[in-house]
């Protein structure tokens, strides 16, 4: 391969896996990094500088709860100084006026605030924390008062799929300029909880139609972006815009991944920012090169006219459902495994509601409920 590898535009910086919430669809890996494994401030500042030099434009400061780190304002300031667009992806829990003001003054560009539901009982049940909704509302008001652009993010699943219009209204009421209606993607924790999260096909199709209608009704007032319910889709999503094409993900302990679920693929070799520069990792690490481009593809992807539209879809989903990461994403109607997706979705949608398997530090799940590590 002599073709020059294009620079990434986005970096997801998972600053910590500590989080006051325990959402059962969390995108973090099932095995979470502990505080003692987290990169220090100096290393993050180096990584940000390397990212800017490499060509990263937008940095998504995420977690866990990124503001659980005491150096969050230092990190935001560094983004601003480097010309990186900073996006704080937060639960909104534990953010008081002083902390938020410090972030605004450090030059934070945008806040994406998650809501689990629009009613306290449901919101707090899904996030696994009493009083969470009230705190989120307070944070949202703080953000708009400080004139930082706000996006409201809602992960959609069985328990809140009927609330899509309520989410959009709430977002408008709170002064958000953008709302993300993100249907749950089934990796990691969400995969563990899939039978408790999966909505029916009818509910899903109705939800898609609702988003279309709301887009028309709210045009010019709020931007509604959607993450599609891919188990019910015809073609797969272009996961991450293609493996190793647009973005990279740095974990709390410094591993650099092509996507947040990449570690579920056994046998991939991930490099860490502790040993190598971001540029070196982006261009040369085996994990980035293994599914980059189209040469790794099997049929039906290899000869498909959509191969450079969806890039074969999601490798982690291919692995989870077909047993091989090189297969087409089975969400695709052309995949020989497509029927499995339909069978799983239909079967899971009929399962009764029960106790979620909440996100937490697995080896000490009893303590994870109180999260002694969660708050510094």
């Amino acid at each position, binding site marked *: 391969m002599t073709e020059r590898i294009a*620079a990434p*535009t986005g970096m997801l910086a998972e600053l910590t896996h500590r989080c006051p919430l325990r959402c059962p669809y969390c995108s973090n890996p099932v095995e979470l990094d502990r505080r003692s494994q987290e990169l220090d401030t100096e290393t993050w500042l180096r990584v940000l500088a390397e990212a800017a*030099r*490499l*060509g990263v*434009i*937008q940095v998504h400061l995420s977690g866990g709860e990124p503001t659980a780190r005491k150096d969050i304002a230092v990190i935001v300031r560094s983004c601003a100084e480097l*010309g990186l*667009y900073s*996006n704080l992806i937060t639960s909104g829990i534990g953010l008081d006026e002083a902390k938020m003001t410090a972030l605004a003054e450090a030059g934070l*560009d*945008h806040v*994406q605030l998650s809501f689990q539901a629009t009613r306290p009982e449901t919101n707090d049940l899904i996030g696994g924390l009493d009083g969470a909704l009230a705190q989120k509302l307070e944070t949202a008001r703080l953000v708009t008062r400080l*004139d*930082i*652009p706000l*996006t409201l993010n809602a992960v959609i699943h069985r328990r809140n799929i009927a609330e899509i219009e309520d989410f959009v209204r709430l977002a408008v009421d709170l002064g958000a*300029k*953008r709302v*993300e209606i993100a249907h749950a993607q089934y990796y990691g924790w969400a995969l563990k909880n899939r039978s408790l999260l999966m909505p029916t096909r009818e509910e899903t199709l109705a939800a898609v139609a609702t988003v279309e209608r709301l887009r028309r009704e709210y*045009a*010019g007032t*709020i*931007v509604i*972006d959607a993450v599609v319910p891919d188990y019910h889709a015809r073609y797969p999503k272009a996961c991450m815009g293609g493996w190793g094409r647009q973005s990279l993900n740095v974990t709390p302990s410094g591993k650099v991944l092509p996507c947040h679920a990449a570690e579920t693929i056994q046998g991939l070799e991930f490099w860490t920012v502790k040993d190598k520069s971001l540029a070196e990792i982006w261009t040369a690490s085996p994990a980035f090169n293994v599914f980059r481009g189209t040469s790794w593809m099997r049929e039906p992807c290899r000869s498909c006219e959509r191969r450079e539209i969806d890039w074969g879809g999601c490798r982690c989903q291919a692995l989870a459902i077909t047993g091989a990461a090189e297969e087409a994403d089975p969400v695709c109607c052309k995949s020989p495994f497509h029927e499995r997706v339909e069978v799983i979705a239909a079967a899971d949608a009929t399962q009764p509601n029960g106790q979620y398997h909440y996100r937490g530090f697995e080896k000490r799940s009893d303590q994870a409920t109180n999260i002694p590590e969660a708050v510094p």
Partner: protein
Amino acid sequence: MTEAAAISGAIIPRLPRGVRLRYDDVRSQWMLLAPERILKPDGIALEILKRCDGKTTLDAIIDDLAKSFGAAREEVASDVREFLNGLAAKRIIEL
């Protein structure tokens, strides 16, 4: 009257907080950055955006563009209004 003609020439278009126009040295290209969006403005779009400095009125922007590019004012006015309306619908510019 088209909708595009409806914006008053006296308004001052501005990029809101969270939207930035910047030159990317790595790709040698201008970019308009917004929440979860990276837009790559073409030549004309860039000339319009550079003039949305939060101080200049729409009329003055149109005059300047018409003069700079030796184009008919009415044509420029209609293109600029359409472009800005499109961005306003995406909440990327404030009119």
